[in-house]
């Protein structure tokens, strides 16, 4: 049995015919491959990954920590943990001592560390727009200065991460461990889509790749027989490379290659991006939006629900929305978001008024959705259009064609070219006054869809429309069209008006809706009756008078009353938000909105339609895009998803269907989503956008809304009491106007303004951090220097004592020992299971290989004397001692010193303490 065991240990593999294959394989190379500085390289990877992790954390939570401080913390922790693996006892003890000191330091200052953690958690949650009041409350209990506490937290974090990275890179080669300690920070920021610290993230990925490449080799060779060069896995009949020294030598080469390769790849990507400006194709934004919607709308319960396919079902993942909203389905999701993707590309002549590009119109409110009213092609009203070769959709065009000014001028005809990119390609997006029938004649693939919108089969089309710019010359809005000097000569046939009155005046019987109606009737309508301006309008146009015939106030009164009802900051007010939350299943969408008083354009438009109908004005719900005059420029105008909008349309005989804007921030030709985007940009740079300025200056309602919602922002940031008061009004406006992603970004801006906006605060923070780091560094350097010097003093003294020992035998043994140590400095191998004379021959051989001149005879004499001193009873003479000392000094001065680099000399002096 014993014999068998011995055989197995000698032979790795024995075939059935008795052919034996040795248990190890000798590996040799032509060129020497040393494992020098392998530990140092591995430590550097640990250091880099720790520093990157800390820097990424700092970048995400925007604490503006000093990079030097972070580097120092990373260095200290990784060095301390790494040197525990060193064979050098001094380094090992030093590392152990440092680790103990660090842990004690963190433990003693645990309150500060906890404070720092809370501070950072609070900043993180605030930036993520998930402020947690409990964090704020906990923070108030922390007595330490926040910046100091953050510094302590970074120290504690560097201890944790440094431990993990050192274990993963130095003590083991363990990619999962490295990933475990570095990825969470990476992910925490990326989750919210925050801008990443490029160098930090690239460095982390490079470290991952390097360790992974080594881990892969390690994994397959982590078998028995680790002390051999190769060890066999008997079942697999496979020899794996297991030599630790061999691995160290090869990994040294591999690390350099992998790090260089991955760095070059990143560098190329960065240079390519910098040279071409390419980051992402436009189409990706569309996919982004679609995927986002798919994730946001996904739920198991809705998976097989028809309603989940909310946008007529032909979008990717079933979530394509008309105009980027929700295709007439209301309250199904918690909210909507914009990602800046391109929805449409349009080309049109210069215009001075907000152009509504209507995509889909619907008049029947049912089951929390707006559905289109079916067209009856045989009805009389329909024939009034078809008889003339027109569609009912051409109504506005027919009206506008007849607009004539007092001087007899007609409106100019213009052409709009539209390319559908990210918007639902099913619908034709066209401005008011478009001639659909003419476009259809011009071979544009365009069909009538019920009676309220058009369906296009092509993604690119052009359509004629009347440029209404002259009507808006005096700062009028859509509601003021009637006051213009242009008058329509077009007379409707009563059939269409009857049809409209029959289908577009019905509203739901709801107590909440009735209460709103009463509120407007009692509190907002009279206000206009007292306005002197109103009198002027009363005289100029019948629609500004109280309509005795129908028993309704004038449209102007009604429109402004409803608009003010939604925007009134003095009353209970309505809040514009992109995340109002889904409507509960049993509740009506409009009732829920009027109760919760928050929502986005679809909410305001839907409620507006119902209220208009209650006041006796036929109205319907429209979705599409809005283009502002500020967006105009020569060539193609890119319309982003931020321009998506929903509004109400009101029917005015003689004028047709005209938009009625009730969404706060959209009146008078503005778009709050674009304003927010612009403001966000302004926050990041000192250059302010002229468009944003103009829109904010002329848009009274927008600013009032901003003011109204600033209170909600201060509520949101209640955990940070001073933040709102410190924010500049512009910032607070932008911060408070938005919600969902906008709230995220504005909250970030708010954080920015709070943290980075004030130069004094920031520099003050740095001032408070730098001395702490500097003091700690200074203490570390002094302590290290002291330890090194004391150790040097002790070892030199010991050497002197040994070399002047009165016992001649001991003295010559010491001379022999130190001679070998000197030779070690120049890489001469002096260890191994060799006799002294074998060692002598080995040394001479190595010296010859390295072209190092050495006195062979003297060295041999020293070896022989040393053997004599150790083995023989013969006495050592003083001449022999002198000769030995002479040999040692000569070897050191002539053979060793000239072959030492500056670094080696420092090492010899302060680490090995040999001279």
């Amino acid at each position, binding site marked *: 049995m014993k014999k068998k065991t011995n055989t197995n240990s000698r032979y790795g*593999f024995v*075939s*059935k*015919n008795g*052919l*034996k*294959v*040795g248990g*190890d*394989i*000798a*590996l*040799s*190379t*032509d*060129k020497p*491959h040393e494992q020098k500085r392998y530990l140092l390289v591995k430590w550097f990877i640990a250091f880099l990954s720790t520093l990157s992790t800390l820097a990424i954390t700092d970048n995400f939570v925007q604490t503006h920590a000093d990079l030097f401080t972070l580097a120092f913390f990373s260095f200290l922790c990784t060095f301390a943990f790494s040197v525990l693996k060193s064979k050098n006892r001094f380094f090992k003890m030093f590392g152990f001592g440092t680790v103990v000191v660090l842990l004690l330091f963190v433990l003693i200052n645990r309150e500060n560390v906890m404070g720092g953690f809370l501070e950072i958690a609070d900043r993180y949650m605030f930036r993520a727009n998930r402020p947690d009041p409990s964090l704020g409350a906990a923070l108030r209990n922390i007595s330490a200065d926040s910046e100091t506490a953050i510094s302590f937290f970074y120290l504690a974090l560097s201890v944790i991460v440094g431990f993990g990275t050192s274990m993963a890179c130095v003590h083991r080669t363990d990619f999962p461990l490295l990933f475990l300690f570095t990825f969470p920070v990476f992910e925490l920021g*990326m989750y919210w*889509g*925050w801008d*990443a610290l*490029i160098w930090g*993230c*690239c460095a982390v*990925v490079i470290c991952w*790749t390097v360790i992974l*490449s080594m881990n*892969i*080799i390690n994994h*397959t*060779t982590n078998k028995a027989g680790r002390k051999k060069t*190769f060890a066999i896995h008997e079942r*697999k*009949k*496979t*020899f*794996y*490379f297991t030599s630790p020294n*061999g691995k160290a030598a*090869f990994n040294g*080469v*591999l690390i350099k*290659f*992998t790090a260089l390769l*991955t760095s070059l*790849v*990143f560098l*190329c*990507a*960065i240079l390519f*991006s910098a040279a071409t400006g390419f*980051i*992402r194709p436009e189409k*990706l*934004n569309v*996919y*982004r939006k679609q*995927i986002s919607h798919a994730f946001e709308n996904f739920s198991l319960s809705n998976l097989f629900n028809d309603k989940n396919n909310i946008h007529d079902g032909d979008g990717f993942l079933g979530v394509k929305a008309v105009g980027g909203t929700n295709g007439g389905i209301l309250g199904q999701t918690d909210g909507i978001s914009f*990602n*800046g993707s391109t929805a449409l590309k349009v080309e049109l002549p210069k215009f001075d008024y907000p152009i509504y590009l209507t995509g889909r119109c619907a008049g029947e409110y049912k089951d929390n959705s707006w559905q289109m009213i079916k067209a009856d092609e045989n009805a009389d009203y329909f024939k009034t259009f078809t008889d003339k070769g027109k569609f009912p959709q051409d109504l506005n065009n027919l009206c506008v064609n007849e607009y004539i000014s007092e001087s007899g001028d007609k409106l100019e005809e213009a052409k709009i070219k539209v390319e559908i990119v990210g918007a639902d390609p099913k619908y034709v997006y066209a401005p008011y006054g478009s001639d659909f029938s003419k476009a259809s004649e011009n071979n544009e693939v365009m069909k009538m869809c019920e009676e309220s919108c058009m369906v296009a089969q092509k993604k690119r089309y052009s359509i004629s429309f009347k440029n209404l710019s002259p009507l808006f010359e005096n700062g009028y809005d859509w509601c003021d069209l009637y006051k213009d000097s242009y008058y329509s000569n077009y007379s409707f046939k009563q059939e269409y008006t009857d049809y409209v009155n029959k289908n577009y005046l019905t509203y739901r019987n709801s107590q909440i809706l009735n209460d709103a109606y009463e509120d407007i009737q009692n509190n907002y309508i009279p206000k206009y009756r007292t306005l002197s301006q109103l009198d002027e309008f009363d005289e100029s146009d019948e629609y500004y008078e109280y309509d005795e015939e129908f028993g309704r106030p004038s449209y102007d009164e009604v429109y402004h009353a409803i608009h003010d009802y939604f925007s009134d900051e003095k009353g209970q007010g309505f809040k514009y938000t992109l995340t109002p939350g889904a409507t509960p299943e049993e509740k009506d969408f409009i009732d829920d909105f009027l109760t919760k008083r928050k929502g986005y354009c679809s909410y305001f438009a839907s409620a507006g339609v119902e209220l208009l109908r209650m006041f006796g004005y036929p109205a319907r719900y429209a979705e599409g895009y809005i283009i502002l005059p500020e967006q105009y420029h020569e060539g193609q105008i890119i319309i982003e998803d931020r321009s998506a909008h929903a509004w109400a349309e009101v029917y005015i005989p003689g004028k047709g269907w005209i938009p009625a804007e009730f969404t706060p921030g959209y009146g008078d030709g503005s778009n709050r989503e674009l304003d927010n985007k612009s403001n966000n940009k302004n926050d990041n740079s000192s250059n302010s956008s002229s468009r944003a300025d103009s829109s904010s200056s002329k848009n009274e309602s927008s600013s009032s809304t901003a003011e109204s919602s600033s209170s909600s922002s201060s509520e949101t940031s209640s955990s940070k009491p001073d933040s709102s008061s410190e924010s500049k009004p512009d910032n607070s406006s932008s911060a408070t106007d938005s919600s969902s992603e906008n709230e995220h970004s504005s909250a970030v801006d708010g954080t920015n303004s709070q943290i980075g906006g004030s130069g004094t605060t920031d520099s003050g923070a740095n001032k408070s951090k730098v001395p702490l780091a500097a003091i700690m560094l200074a203490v570390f350097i002094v302590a290290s220097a002291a330890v090194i010097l004391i150790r040097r003093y002790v070892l030199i003294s010991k050497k002197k004592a040994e070399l002047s020992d009165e016992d001649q035998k001991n003295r010559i043994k010491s001379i022999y020992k130190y001679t070998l140590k000197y030779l070690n400095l120049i890489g001469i191998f002096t260890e191994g299971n060799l006799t002294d004379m074998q060692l002598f021959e080995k040394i001479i051989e190595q010296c010859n290989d390295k072209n190092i001149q050495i006195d062979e005879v003297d060295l041999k004499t020293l070896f022989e004397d040393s053997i004599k001193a150790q083995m023989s009873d013969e006495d050592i003479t003083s001449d022999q001692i002198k000769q030995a000392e002479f040999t040692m000094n000569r070897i050191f001065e002539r053979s060793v010193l000239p072959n030492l680099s500056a670094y080696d000399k420092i090492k010899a002096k302060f680490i090995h303490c040999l001279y």
Partner: protein
Amino acid sequence: MPVIYLILFIVSLFFYILYKGVFSFYLFAFFIAVPIILFCLYLYAANKIKLSIIKSSKIRRKDENIPVNIEINNPTFIPISGMTIFLEIYSKLDGDKNVIKVCTPVYPRDKQYLSLIVSPAHCGGVRCKIVKCRIHDLLRLFSFKIKNLKRSPEDIRWDFFAVPEYIPINNNIENSYHLGIETDEYSKQSKGDDPTEIFDIREYSAGDKISRIHWKLSAKQDSTMVKDYSLPITNSILLVFDPCIDKSKEGYMEQYDALLEAVVTISRYLSENSTGFSAVWFTNGNMKLMNITNEEECTVFIEKLIYADVYDSDKNIAALLEDSESDLACGHMIYFSSKYNESITAALYESAIALKYSYMLGMTELSNEKITDEFAKVYQLSSGSVPVLISSLNL
């Protein structure tokens, strides 16, 4: 790894779509570029790396630790973190193929040598061949075959022949001349009685025959000179190596070892003693004949036994008997085989190839029952004790 990488790639793609920051592009570009670059680099390396087996002496002793040295030359700058060498070790005797894999890193711009120790427990031919070699990239995404293997098939193969250790014997070598076989060859070591050839001329010493005095030379030299006659020697020993191994029987390898041990021992002994002999073996059923007169020729003969037929075939003995009247006539025929029956010895006897027959019978293990044969003396051989068992053999 490819699956994991694919997952990571998909994740990075989603990250690129969903995350608008520039880092998503860098990461995505990284995930696209890295496999492409690795593919190109390692494909290039696979074309450039050369493997070969360093060949050394073909004749090896059984149980010797034989180093199989593989040279890997990587002239590229690319370190190969994983190279898998598939080394086939094929034993010709039993046809057993063992493929051993060696996973090794390969240094860039360097030659490295792997020395694998192989030790055959039985005699016979062994072939070491690199049948396949693959390299993996550093992330183990791709695997490439080393192209060089097909280009130089001779460099990746090494055959050697494991022979038993030679133990000297001291058997009597008979001169077949006395048996009446004529010859033109004379011994260079020993003098004889054939007056047709003078072996040596020397001064007279007491006891020399008067008839041997070279009178003419004595007169010229002024000293009595005598002449020694040469000893005619007959190349009269024929070794026939026909193992006739039956693989179905247990211990056939031991039988082969015993036979090979016997043939090597006898042939070496004869060549050491400058006794010429002939040897016959069969390769693919074809009879091969070789005359051996010295040790070098003996070594060549042993090398050639690598290719000798090993298994039982009636054709071999038939071919031998057909050629019996030509070159094979000898004084003593020694037949090496593991197959025995009286009909074989009878046939040999009837063929009258030799004047004397010895039958070396390879045995699985030593038997106490001695085989007696009318026509040949049968020696029952067992591996490890051949010299003792053939000590009575009169060559």
